[in-house]
């Protein structure tokens, strides 16, 4: 049957790195997305335009180009800055950090759009009632808005996560030892590229399937109050 010539464990290591990159970028994207969504909803014209430029520009440029720009450009920028500060040694940017930051940066823009829409979908009266109770801004956000907007945001966030997970495959291009790169190494050594890339595809399908099941469960959880017969 399936003979991986002893490269199975290496592939699994790559798979766990793929998950790590995915989850770390998700955290970065959610933080950036929340901040950007709040900026888009703010009364300050400056914040609103910064957020608008960020989401428009990021969504108009391919992930791969942005990733290469951040990885190679970041390298040059960091070294120039270090040189200016009198630091002589060459600094290598860690591909893990470059990958996570660029994917998080890209998906922050998509998350912002989803979160903004979900925030606006919550009835205005909920917020007003919370204010009438004398809740502080933080309390209103975390206790009243977040639990309700999650219901509207989950389908969009879930979609973004599925796209994000597939985007992690691109980190292999900037030299990170994820599953795709490991498969490439194994394929080179064994002359079985079809087998190894198909296994990678199967693992991605598994990740997607598990994510979809978890999302269904979460959507049921946040939709409890609205469940119909």
């Amino acid at each position, binding site marked *: 049957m399936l003979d991986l010539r002893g490269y199975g464990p290496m592939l699994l290591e790559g798979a766990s790195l793929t998950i790590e990159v995915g989850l770390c970028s998700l955290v970065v994207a959610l933080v950036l997305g929340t901040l950007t969504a709040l900026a888009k909803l703010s009364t300050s014209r400056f914040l609103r335009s910064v957020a608008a430029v960020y989401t428009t520009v990021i969504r*108009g*440029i*391919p992930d791969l*180009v942005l990733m290469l720009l951040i990885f*190679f450009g970041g390298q040059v920028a960091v070294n120039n800055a270090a040189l200016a500060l009198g630091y002589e040694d060459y600094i290598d940017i860690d591909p893990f950090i470059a990958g996570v930051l660029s994917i998080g940066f890209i998906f922050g823009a998509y998350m912002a759009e989803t979160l903004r829409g979900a925030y606006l979908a919550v009835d205005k009266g909920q917020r007003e009632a919370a204010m009438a109770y004398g809740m502080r801004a933080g309390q209103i956000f975390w206790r009243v808005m977040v639990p309700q907007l999650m219901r509207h945001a989950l389908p969009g966030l879930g979609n973004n996560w599925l796209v994000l997970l597939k985007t992690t495959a691109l980190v292999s291009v900037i030299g990170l030892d994820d599953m*795709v790169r490991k*498969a490439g190494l194994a394929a080179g050594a064994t002359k079985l590229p*079809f*087998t190894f*890339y198909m296994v990678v595809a199967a693992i991605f399908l598994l990740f997607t399937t598990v994510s979809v099941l978890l999302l269904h469960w979460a959507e049921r959880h946040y939709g409890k109050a609205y469940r119909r017969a």
Partner: protein
Amino acid sequence: MDFSIIADNWPLYMQGLGLTLQLVALSLVIGFCIALPLALMRQSSIKAVSWFAWGYIYFFRGTPLLVQLFIIYFGLGQWEWLKTTWAWDLFKEAYFCALLSFTLNTAAYSAEIIRGAIAATPHGEVEAAVAYGMSPFKRMFRIILPSAARRALHAYSNEIIFMLHGSSVAGIITLNDLTGVARLVNSRYYSPFEAFLTSGLIYLCVTFAIVAAVKALENRWHAHLRPRTA
């Protein structure tokens, strides 16, 4: 910023843009031709047919385009017998492999968009077509598909943009598309900002052009839905 690098390599960037647009346009057109039957197969009452379509869509939507490209470009070389056939003349070309994987990929996404749009057809429209005595074929091509096309337009415009951005992986398998050119310029001058920002901005312009074109088309197609001005 050293603008002379950009100016010197501008013709190269334009060639890259040409290749990118060509790949995207061809794969969208061929992919759409596959997507339509695929969407109808998905609706079929024959189990085997609808399962096949489901499996196809599930595989291509659930795995990264990069992996699909690698399976075709690197993977098929594993089969020695394939190298003895005429097909190998095609499969050894990076261009053909990129076009094939983009086409198969966009076919899956488009099929899902078309299926969703067909499923959302108001039942009254179908009933009216039946009442007029239209055959199932006529019903599909005169009533259901034109109505679905209007609903699908917005989702499909997103797919066009995804394909434009997705096509950047062609630059990884030695093709000199817009991304490939940027990689080339970067490796030649070691000036990542000039190299990648230039192609990034060109991609941005193309994206804006697509958005504007779709908006114009929407205005036209959705004219009957526009609120009436007194």
